[in-house]
């Protein structure tokens, strides 16, 4: 089902998208659907599993449901420390 979402890109994804944040209308049930549907934006051909995702500032699994109005944060593979 089509949802209106705010998507935020970080690090390499932000550089690829050329922006921090955008509003998108997307046919997506789960976080994984958002990742797959926005490949042309974040630029990653990798499986979502190598990356992380948060919905409304909560880290979630890729099968977490997205709802209309959610903010989805797409994180490339992390490298702290």
């Amino acid at each position, binding site marked *: 089902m089509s949802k209106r979402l705010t998507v935020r890109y970080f690090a*390499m994804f932000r550089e690829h998208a050329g922006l921090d944040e955008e509003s998108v209308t997307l046919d997506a049930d789960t976080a994984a659907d958002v990742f797959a549907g926005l490949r042309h934006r974040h630029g990653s051909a*990798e499986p979502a599993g*190598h990356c992380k995702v948060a919905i409304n500032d909560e880290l979630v699994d890729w099968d977490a449901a997205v709802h209309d109005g959610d903010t989805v944060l797409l994180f490339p593979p992390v*490298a*702290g420390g």
Partner: protein
Amino acid sequence: MMEMVETAIEPGPLREQLLDATAGACATFEGWIRNHNDGRDVLRLEYEAYAPLAIREGERVIREAMAKYPVLNARCVHRSGLLEIGECAVWVGVSAAHRDAAFLACRYIIDEVKVRLPIWKKEHYAGGDSGWVNCERCGAHAAGRAARA
């Protein structure tokens, strides 16, 4: 306690915060910017972090460490922004009655922080190019974009 900072990490005052009359051991770890990685000369590192979630996930990691091991205090501070060679990117400190718990909890925290917190680093190489660490295969256009950056 987890903290994200944008200025130099100072180990002295952080260590003070671990002091406890019942503590017999204090283990610390610091991650420093080194001048090489994977055989390439590194000039400096750029850390990007999503602080609200990095703090929340860091707090979770510290709570896990304190539940797993009998420790008294545990703290972690991570820096973001542009860091030069030799600077401290992350500091972890743990105090405990005994050294075994202090070492194990300190190790647990840094291991988890490195793989769970939304923090990224971009290496700037001697050749003038740069690259996001752990993202070699993240994007189809990755190599080309990094070289142009």
